[in-house]
């Protein structure tokens, strides 16, 4: 049985959905970060597989840049998390609700 692009894409979709469930379900900011990472990785898989399918390197390039962005995000995000934790003593989203309209 040949493993085609569909397999990779379906995997990517399932992983993305898992990350999505995480984003929706978790209230802890750190967990949200994890979920985001999962989603980014899912997308990376999709990029790499499509690139492979077309025999085009652009897919890999995008995945590469996504990794770079993810890395920056983690760096800045964690810094912010630490500040938040110092301020509120918690990373729970419900505690930090200052944007009520």
């Amino acid at each position, binding site marked *: 049985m040949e493993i085609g692009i569909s397999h990779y894409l379906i995997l990517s979709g399932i992983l993305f959905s898992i990350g999505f469930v995480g984003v929706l379900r978790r209230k802890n900011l750190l967990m949200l970060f994890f979920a985001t990472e999962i989603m980014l990785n899912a997308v990376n898989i999709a990029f*790499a597989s499509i690139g492979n399918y077309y025999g085009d390197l652009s897919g890999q390039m995008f995945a590469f840049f996504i990794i770079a962005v993810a890395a920056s995000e983690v760096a800045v995000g964690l810094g912010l998390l630490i500040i938040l934790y110092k301020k509120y003593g918690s990373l729970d989203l419900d505690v930090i609700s200052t944007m009520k309209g």
Partner: protein
Amino acid sequence: MYEFVAFYIFAIATTILFLITVMSKNVLYSMTSLAAGMVLISGLFFLLGADFLGVVQLIVYVGAVMALYSFAMMFFDATKDVKEKHGNSTLVFLLGGLMALVFVVMFSAPIIGENIQALYPVGLAENLGVSGNAQDVGLVLFTKYLVPFEVAALMLLVAMIAGIILAGKKMDYSLTECEASDEELQKEIKKEEA
């Protein structure tokens, strides 16, 4: 056959690991399973012939990002279970499940457009007498994607400095807003609500 087995092993393992990440109450477990999942995804990359990407994945994610997370964990109490109120779990799973279903349906549909030409075909470097994914990537990255690459580098630098400053010495008070005024704001909000 070899690819078949490898794919399914990697696929099922990552799925399970990531599920653990999302579901686990313990941050440590989550993080560990996440790291493991990342490693397995790099395996997928290797399978796809994206060797360089797989390596980057290992180095950046599993090496750097996970290390950052672990350091960050030291600021938070990681041993305690995370207490969360789960509002409407059914809705969440429904949405997630629906999304997965849509993806599956979408991607299992036959793909059209096989005649699309590759813009930067694999094996570009072979013309230059060298072969291998890393070489190809290098060639594309430093020609076509040079500017984005440099921008990404700059972005990483900025992020690094930002991370250092945010998590740095002056952690006692907010850098964006004065705490006192923030409290006042909170009070006002409460008043308005009342």
